């Protein structure tokens, strides 16, 4: 009998738990440890943040589902890792602190045979002074509660605009090294469309602020894509959309301080500037959770497990940007020191940046960190689950399932406005996610045809269909497993 403990019930943790439970018989224990009582389909927070969806439409409680499916659930947050056990507990374990109302503050040692760390990112608002969702007129849409606040803020602003007042809106990244530009891109287009729907668009000046060097970088160094019969760069496509929607942009901006209605930022040429606003949505930087790890003698071995995020089978040798290769990226998401620990999704430490690193003359690094979107998070979680299942069934380590982000496609269906007839979407697919400049030297590291863009109503329908399909899948309804990650 094996016990598999999964930390986190986001996209990757939940995918891993559901596949493990389906494929392993009940003599094996599957336990999820996560502080959230609800599962949330994060991509639809964009629509919650403009009031076109209620947060209850994008979430459901985890405990009843896990009970029904025979998955153990502890509503707790992990604080430390003991991958060798200690002198009290022989087996490896993690220490978790309960956050549920009944057991709040209690700690427990949770032992495991296999551990999947799917804790995603810490939303590191503290890294930007004054950036705290819902204060200083700055919001976030990273969780459903944040998105609810953002919607309240936006409603209040629209009410002011309806009275004839003009407004300045700033949307983008709230830190020099933030990632997840895609989410901010979706939000700015949805806000713009919502203002048109509310007939107040002429009252608003909307500005995109981002740490990207060029528009459409998305932390992936941009891309060359086929668009209809044309081939264009992602910055040209985004520029076309922004100009068409009357959205201004500020690039190479490392936001470092937020005051009431005022964002301070440093530019790539070293200038310190400010922009004032009446409503802002700024994505914070993502960081590791600051977990600690100890060996069996209680010596600190955090460095063996974490490099901010969790260390996996990547090549972390420091080297210049020009020298990195796609082979540096992990394939099994296994920790090299402790072979029974894995980290899919956002929880693993990327070997290097995908976007070209850039510094201001003051030494401030201003460029996007590498993103890991929902699709790779799900795919990497499933392959980790499959390797664990094989290892358990074959009674020896099996790592046949591999999935490097350098040999994996992703679809980013970015909502550009909500509505069955008036909605829009910018659908972008990339293959591979991490560019392989050796394999595709003439097309910026990506395969054209599999890397393409489309703009239009169909994109909105697709995004909406994915919303329903993935919530169906997450609820583990009949044949859920036929829906791909």
């Amino acid at each position: 009998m094996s016990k598999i403990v999964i930390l986190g019930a986001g996209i990757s943790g939940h995918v891993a738990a559901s596949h493990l439970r389906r494929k392993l018989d009940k003599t094996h224990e599957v336990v999820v440890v996560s502080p959230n009582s609800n599962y949330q389909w994060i991509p639809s927070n964009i629509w919650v943040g403009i009031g076109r969806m209620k947060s209850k439409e994008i979430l459901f409680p985890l405990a009843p589902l896990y009970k029904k499916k025979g998955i153990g659930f502890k509503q707790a947050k992990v604080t430390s890792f003991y991958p060798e056990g200690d002198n009290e507990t022989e087996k490896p374990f993690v220490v978790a602190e309960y956050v549920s109302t009944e057991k709040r503050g209690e700690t427990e040692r949770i032992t495991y045979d296999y551990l999947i760390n799917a804790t995603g990112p810490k939303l590191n608002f503290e890294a930007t002074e004054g950036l705290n969702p819902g204060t200083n007129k700055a919001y976030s849409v990273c969780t459903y509660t944040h998105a609810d606040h953002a919607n309240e803020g936006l409603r209040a602003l629209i009410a002011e605009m309806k009275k004839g007042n003009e407004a300045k809106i700033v949307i983008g990244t709230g830190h020099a090294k933030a990632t997840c530009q895609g989410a901010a891109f979706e939000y700015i287009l949805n806000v713009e469309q919502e203002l048109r729907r509310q007939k107040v668009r002429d009252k608003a000046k909307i500005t995109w602020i981002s740490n990207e060097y060029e528009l459409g970088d998305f932390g992936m160094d941009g891309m060359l894509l086929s668009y209809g019969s044309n081939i264009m760069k992602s910055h040209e496509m985004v520029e076309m959309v922004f100009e068409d929607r009357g959205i201004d942009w500020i690039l190479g901006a490392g936001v470092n301080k937020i005051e009431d209605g005022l964002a301070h930022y440093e530019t790539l040429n070293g200038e310190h500037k400010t922009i004032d606003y009446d409503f802002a949505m700024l994505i914070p930087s993502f960081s590791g959770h600051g977990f600690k790890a100890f060996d069996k003698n209680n010596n600190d071995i955090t460095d063996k497990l974490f490099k901010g995020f969790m260390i996996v089978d990547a090549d972390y040798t420091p080297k210049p940007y020009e020298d990195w290769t796609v082979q540096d990226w992990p394939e099994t998401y296994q920790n090299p020191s402790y072979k029974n620990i894995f980290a899919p999704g956002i929880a693993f430490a990327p070997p290097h940046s995908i976007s070209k690193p850039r510094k201001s003359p003051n030494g401030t690094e201003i460029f996007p960190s590498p993103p890991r979107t929902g699709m790779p998070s799900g795919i990497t979680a499933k392959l980790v689950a499959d390797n664990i299942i094989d290892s358990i069934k074959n009674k020896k380590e099996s790592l046949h399932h591999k999935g490097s982000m350098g040999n994996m496609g992703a679809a980013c269906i970015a909502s550009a406005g909500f509505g069955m007839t008036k909605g829009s979407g910018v659908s972008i697919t990339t293959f591979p996610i991490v560019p392989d400049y050796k394999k595709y030297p003439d097309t910026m590291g990506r395969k054209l045809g599999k890397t393409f863009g489309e703009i239009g109503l169909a994109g909105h329908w697709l995004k909406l269909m994915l919303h329903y399909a993935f919530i169906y899948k997450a609820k583990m309804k009949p044949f859920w497993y036929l829906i791909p990650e």
Partner: protein
Amino acid sequence: MTKRISKFKRFVMMNPIIQFFKFIFLSLKVLLIVAGGHGSTREVHK
């Protein structure tokens, strides 16, 4: 606001009938890219 999308292009982007076929095409294309698989890069380049 600078008009960067022509009237015709906008019509194509927002016409429900054209977009219905685009939707089917996009869904299949996305499915193929995802279901098209993933794997190692290290073995390929050995």
